C-alpha cells in the first residue's frame, strides 16, 4: 500500500489517501505487520476483506446506514484489539467474521436499531435490499459463483444461517423446523461439498 498524501486538518487528524496497491501479503506477513501497528497493512486488510465482512453485516442488519456504522465499529475493534488475535486458533478472517457478526447481532438487539427498522419497513425496504446482491466482481471473475450453484439450496441456507448469521445448530433446527440430527449431517455435507467445489 502506497501512502501518497498525508494532509493535516485543523484538529491534527491525518487524512491519508490510499491508492490501490499491487502489494500482496500472505497471511503471516499481514498478521506480523498488523501486530506492529502498520497502517498500510490495515488499509490492505480493509481493501481485501471489507466487502466480505460487509456482506455478512448487511445480511444481519439489512440497512445500509446501520451496516456501514457496524462495519466501521468492526474495523476499529479489529485494529484496537489486534493483539488479542491468536493465529493458533484459526485464520485471521475467521476471527474478523466473529467480530463483525457479534457486533451485528448486538446491534439488532438495540432499541435504536428496532426503531429504525420500523421506519424502514414503512418505506422502501425491498429496493434497499435488492440493490446489493452479489456486487463483488473480484471473486466472480474466478467463476466461483457459477461453481457454487452446484451447492444445493438447503445446503447454502444452512451455511448462511450458521456462518453468516451466527445461528447455532439448535437455533437452525428450530428456525427451519427440522431435527437437530438433520441439521448436523446437512451442515457437514454442505461444508464438504463447499470444499470440493472451492478446493478441487
Amino acid at each position: 500500500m502506497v501512502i501518497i498524501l498525508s494532509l493535516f486538518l485543523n484538529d491534527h487528524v491525518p487524512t491519508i489517501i490510499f491508492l490501490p496497491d499491487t502489494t500482496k501479503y500472505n497471511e503471516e506477513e499481514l498478521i506480523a505487520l498488523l501486530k506492529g501497528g502498520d497502517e498500510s497493512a490495515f488499509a490492505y486488510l480493509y481493501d481485501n476483506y471489507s466487502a466480505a465482512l460487509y456482506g455478512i453485516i448487511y445480511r444481519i442488519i439489512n440497512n445500509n446506514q446501520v451496516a456501514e456504522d457496524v462495519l466501521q465499529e468492526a474495523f476499529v475493534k479489529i485494529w484496537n484489539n489486534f493483539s488479542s488475535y491468536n493465529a493458533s486458533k484459526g485464520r485471521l478472517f475467521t476471527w474478523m467474521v466473529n467480530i463483525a457478526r457479534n457486533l451485528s447481532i448486538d446491534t439488532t438487539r438495540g432499541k435504536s436499531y428496532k426503531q429504525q427498522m420500523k421506519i424502514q419497513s414503512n418505506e422502501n425496504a425491498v429496493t434497499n435490499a435488492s440493490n446489493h446482491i452479489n456486487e463483488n466482481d473480484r471473486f466472480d471473475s474466478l467463476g466461483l459463483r457459477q461453481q457454487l450453484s452446484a451447492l444445493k439450496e438447503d445446503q447454502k441456507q444452512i451455511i448462511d444461517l450458521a456462518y453468516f448469521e451466527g445461528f447455532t445448530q439448535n437455533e437452525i433446527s428450530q428456525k427451519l423446523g427440522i431435527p437437530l440430527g438433520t441439521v448436523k449431517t446437512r451442515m457437514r455435507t454442505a461444508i464438504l461439498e463447499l470444499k470440493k467445489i472451492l478446493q478441487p
Partner: protein
Amino acid sequence: MNKEEFISSGLLELYAMRISSPEETQIVEETLKQFPELKQELEDIEISLEEYAQVNAIEPPASAKEKIISRVFAEGANEENKTAPVISINKKTAIPMFYKWIAAAALILLIGSIIVNYSYYEKYHDAKQELITAQRTIEQQQKSNQAMNQDMEIVTNKYAEPVLLKGTPKAPDAVAKIFWMKNTGDVYINPTNLPQAPAGKQYQLWGIVDGKPVDGGMIRTEKGTYHIQKMKSFGKADAFAITLEKAGGSPTPTMSEMVVIAKM
C-alpha cells in the same frame, strides 16, 4: 475420541464457523493440540468458508473507507494520549526514591559549590588587593627609578659643570648644587639641601649676567620632589644665587632673602 471420530463429528466445522459452544470449543482446541495435523483440515474448512464469504461479498459505500481509516488512526492517537497519563501515574509511585536521591545529590552539590565558590571568591579578592598594592609599589618604584636615572644622567653628563652654591649668613646650613651644561647652557639644580620653603614662599634661581640678575625659574621644594630640576638656560653667567621669594616668583630678587650664592 480418536481422529476419525473427531473429523466425522462435525465439531471442526462448527469451530471454523465460530458457532461451537464453549464445551465444544474446548474439545476442538484440545484435540488440535493432540493432533497438530488436524490444523490443516481446519484451515481447509476456513479457507472454503472465506471464499464463500468473498463470493457473497457486498462492496460497502465508498465513503466508508476514509471514515474508518481516519477514525482508526485518530483513535490510535487518542489511545496514546490516554495511556500517557497512566504511565505517568505508574512512574509517580515507582520512581519517587530515584527522584529523592537525585534531589539530595543536587542539593549537596549545590551547597558544596557555594562553599567552594565563596572560599575562592575570598582568595580572589585578597589576591586582587595584593596585586593592586604590588602594582602601586612597582609604579612608585618605577617613578623614583626614572627620577633617579634622570638625576644620574645629569650628574654623570660629561658636559655638566657642577657649581656649589653655599649658604649665606642668613642660611648658613643651606647648600644647593647646580649642573650647568657647557654645551647647551642648560641649568639643572639639586635642591636637596635647601630647607623646605615656608608656606606662601618659594625659592627662585637667579643668574647674574653682566652684573644684572636674570630670572632662572622657580625651585620646587615640596616634600617628595627633591630631585634635580631643570631651570632656565644660561649661555653665560657670572654668578648664580637663590633667594626666597613669594610664591610664583618676583621680577627682581629680594637681596635680603638670598640663601645661597656662587661666583663662577
